[in-house]
């Protein structure tokens, strides 16, 4: 039987996998890496950039607050005055738990995977609010380019420290690029502002030992797949059914693989049952096939919002592997 890592590579290279990849099993996520303050359930925090996040009890995630009292950047032309990157944590002491975890991973079996969030597009709207960020792309493109360059420089500074400490084989990178039905910006605007940024970022990782770039965007983004290929993404995780995943696999499978086709909204909710999970998993596996495709929920990271869903999804995928391989 192939190792999880080998099976993943056979799947994405169009070789001979011996089973479906089970969601995130190939990624051993090093979540101990220092990433700055992140909001948890029931909390309201201000992070190192000065952005205030809140996660009310009962919600599925946190949100930045953008009222007048909390918005960090109210006028893009003044970004240099208000946007100050936090210091990158470099101390060996802070990185020790992540290093210990990474060193304990059998790299024949799994990819040592660093998690990076938020992404560059998300940072612009965390700082400014979504409407201001999107309008600024039109109204003040030079300042937006400069802000994006600043954000990229910060991520590269963090990336260098991270690579030096844990030598990741893979990066799992978060940046939502659309709603369920459309990308937030046009492919042309995306090409102008965000492709150069990510070519630098993903290029750095690939030049420094990273074999696999897995990008999360639980959205529609079919119109951005050529750009994803151009920036060096190997796997698009979070691909929702609105993208017509079988068509994407047919068109782009040899250049990029797709992880998802099971929308979290239909399996990961209070009234979920194993039968519901099995039904959507079977549909995804049968319509997407065995190559260039990893079945799994569109939600990011290796857990569900409701207890038991992720594990049930794994069981359903095992069943499809027995049936289809």
């Amino acid at each position, binding site marked *: 039987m192939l190792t999880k890592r080998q099976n993943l590579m056979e799947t994405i290279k169009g070789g001979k996998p011996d089973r479906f990849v089970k969601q995130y099993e190939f990624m051993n996520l090093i979540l101990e890496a220092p990433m700055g303050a992140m909001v948890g359930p029931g909390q309201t925090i201000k992070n190192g950039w000065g952005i205030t996040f809140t996660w009310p009890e009962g*919600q*599925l995630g946190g949100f930045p607050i953008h009222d007048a009292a909390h918005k960090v950047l109210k006028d893009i032309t003044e970004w240099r005055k208000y946007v100050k990157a936090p210091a990158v944590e470099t101390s060996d002491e802070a990185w020790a738990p992540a290093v210990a975890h990474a060193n304990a991973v059998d790299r024949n079996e799994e990819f040592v995977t660093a998690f990076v969030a938020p992404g560059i597009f998300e940072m612009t709207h965390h700082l400014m609010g979504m409407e201001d960020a*999107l309008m600024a*792309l039109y109204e003040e493109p030079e300042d937006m380019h400069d802000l994006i360059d600043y954000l990229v420089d910060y991520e590269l500074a963090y990336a260098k420290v991270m690579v030096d400490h844990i030598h990741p084989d893979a990066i799992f990178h978060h940046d939502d690029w659309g*709603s369920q039905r*459309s990308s937030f910006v046009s492919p042309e*605007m995306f090409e102008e502002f965000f492709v150069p940024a990510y070519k630098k970022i993903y290029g750095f990782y690939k030049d420094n030992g990273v074999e696999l770039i897995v990008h999360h965007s639980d959205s529609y983004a079919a119109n951005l797949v050529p750009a994803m290929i151009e920036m060096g993404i190997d796997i698009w995780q979070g691909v929702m059914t609105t993208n017509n995943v079988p068509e994407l696999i047919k068109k782009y499978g040899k250049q990029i693989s797709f992880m998802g086709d099971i929308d979290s909204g239909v399996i990961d909710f209070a009234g979920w049952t194993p039968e519901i999970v099995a039904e959507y998993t079977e549909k995804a596996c049968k319509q997407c096939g065995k190559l260039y495709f990893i079945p799994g929920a569109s939600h990011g990271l290796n857990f569900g919002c409701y207890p038991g869903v992720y594990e049930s999804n794994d069981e359903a995928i095992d069943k499809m592997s027995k049936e289809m391989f």
Partner: protein
Amino acid sequence: MSKIDEVKAKVEAGKSKLVPGLVQEALDAGNTPQDILDAMVASMGVIGEKFSTGEIFVPEMLVAAKAMSKGVDVLKPHLAGDGSSKLGTCIIGTVEGDLHDIGKNLVSLMIESAGFDIVDLGVDVPAEKFIEAIKENTNVKIVACSGLLTSTMPAMRKTVAAINASGLTGFKVIVGGAPVTPEFAAEIGADGFALDAGTAAVKAKELAAA
């Protein structure tokens, strides 16, 4: 190109710095404020259609709406009446338990551009607050409930049921958001459903006129 056609073209192109001057020129050329306003509303209708078909995206919609808003600022002193909209008032909010606002904000923008006065209740809005807003505002024609999460669909059901049971009349309820379907909208007793911001404005006008 007539002055009004220039205004329309620049609203569609999102040229918010040019539109105020062009609106003034259109007034100076003898066009009525209402005709100019109707032209800008028609531009936003085109924007809504293009957004629904995927020809344009959120930034284009936002800058067009901003351009129209700058044009309306020039027209306001010239428009007859008390400034309230002919089409009525739309109360809008994201239902209780849901903090997503961008979809609701886009719908709000498009419905306002179509000619309604908007009362935006924000996010995480309990049913009682929708009902209070209907009572406190005049000429309410549309109540719009938004929800992005499957887990907040019960709250949408509860909100629509509460509004329908309130005894208040004279308006229609529309619902929308990623997990919402026409079947769900009908099941919970909403009067209408809209797939996106573009079609929401069309639906609001249709329901308000019915």
